């Protein structure tokens, strides 16, 4: 299940949704948050996430399908927020369940690496009256190459 939404998400509820009775032996989850990015007090900073409706969901589904073809997974949940956020807000959730931990860890890592480089989202940081778009990181490209 993939969701792109403005509203916050409940990690406990998403965890429960990953469990398959009598079958799940491992759950790996990742939560990304907005961290401090400026010298100004947090209440003078905002963070905005733009996306490409339609393409973003398509990208995320392709990434999840790819993960399912590489590892033996039970349930996968990806939730990504868009719109205006504040420091400390949750941005993204990726959760994976499987029989064993290796698959869960690897699939969760893989989905996040691909999401960072192959899903149509853009971050913008605003401090006071100044705004700037976040630039893509070279480190993210290197991490993606691990799976190719």
């Amino acid at each position, binding site marked *: 299940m993939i969701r792109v939404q403005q509203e916050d998400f409940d990690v406990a509820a998403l965890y429960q949704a990953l469990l398959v009775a009598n079958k799940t032996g491992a759950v790996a989850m990742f939560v*990304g948050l907005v961290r401090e990015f400026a010298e100004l007090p947090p209440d003078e900073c905002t963070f905005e*996430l*733009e*996306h*490409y409706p*339609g*393409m973003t969901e*398509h*990208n995320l589904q392709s990434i999840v399908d790819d993960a399912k073809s590489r590892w033996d997974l039970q349930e996968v949940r990806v939730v*990504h927020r868009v719109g205006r956020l504040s420091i400390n807000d949750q*941005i*993204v959730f990726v959760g994976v369940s499987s029989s064993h931990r290796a698959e869960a860890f690897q699939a969760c890592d893989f989905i*996040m690496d691909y*999401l*960072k*480089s*192959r*899903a*149509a*989202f*853009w*971050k*913008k940081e605003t401090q006071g009256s100044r705004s700037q*778009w*976040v*630039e*893509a990181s070279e480190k993210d490209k290197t991490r993606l190459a691990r799976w190719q």
Partner: protein
Amino acid sequence: MTNVNVLFFASLKETLGISEYQLAGNFPMTIRAVKQQLSAELAKGDALLGVGIQSSIDYEFARDADLVASSAQEIAFFPPVTGG
């Protein structure tokens, strides 16, 4: 000539000052050719030729050499993605 809807996102959208444009072109044509045509038709269109500008054809990431078919519904241009 065929019309294709072109979308722009993030910093590229702000530089161009538009989020959408109807492009009349002789498809099939490459993404590279689409960029060049747009750069001539749009104010500040040179921004499309900048290093790292990415593209998509009908929601799939595309490269400069990829062909946009006359049946394509939507093309988009944007800076490198930064989600997560």
